[in-house]
């Protein structure tokens, strides 16, 4: 079974520039998550999709971050404009089930963003 794919793996930009990350979840997984992981910290949820609808975006800085999940499959996360504090690893994860015991989340390798 193919895992969660993310691209690019690394990105370096200057502050105030824009950047986009792409995620392809495991086939058939209904739920997709974007996490931000700052060095030395655990991942922090940015947004959660159920199919192509948003379940939770309470921690997404909506003035600069946006995300969409086209047709309930792939997803993109955009930052515009970027700030220095956005330097982090952006992780995408997906999980297969809608309810019941907590889903196992499958994480991609992440995109390391450096804002200069």
């Amino acid at each position, binding site marked *: 079974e193919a895992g969660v794919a993310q691209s690019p793996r690394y990105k370096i930009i200057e502050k105030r520039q824009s950047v986009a990350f792409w995620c392809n979840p495991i086939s058939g997984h209904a739920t997709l998550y974007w996490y931000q992981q700052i060095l030395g*910290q655990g*991942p922090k949820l940015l947004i*959660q999709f159920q199919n192509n609808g948003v379940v939770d975006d309470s921690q997404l800085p909506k003035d600069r971050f946006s995300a969409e999940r086209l047709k309930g499959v792939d997803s993109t996360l955009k930052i515009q404009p970027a700030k220095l504090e956005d330097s982090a690893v952006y992780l995408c994860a997906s999980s297969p089930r*809608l309810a019941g*015991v*907590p889903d196992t*989340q499958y*994480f*991609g*390798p992440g995109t390391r963003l450096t804002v200069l």
Partner: protein
Amino acid sequence: LAKTTQPISMDSYEGQEVNITCSHNNIATNDYITWYQQFPSQGPRFIIQGYKTKVTNEVASLFIPADRKSSTLSLPRVSLSDTAVYYCLVASGGGRRALTFGSGTRLQVQP
């Protein structure tokens, strides 16, 4: 969401058993305890999940006492490749909530 507390770091040697304890005093009735492992430059990976008593798989064991206010992840005979950060999480049995990660426990295995 129940908050978890776990040691910041631990050291061990190859071949030893490692036990990482996590406290979650305000765990709810329908919450499960879940552990993830993260290697450098990789996303977290699911290790084990349990609700009560003991759960064992090919990688680890998870011990949960009757009051469920703490849990212990046990890694038998660790090797250098077990050097990683281990996260203890409490996840709702409803299954739709995202995971709330703490800072995790950084395990360093020495030769």
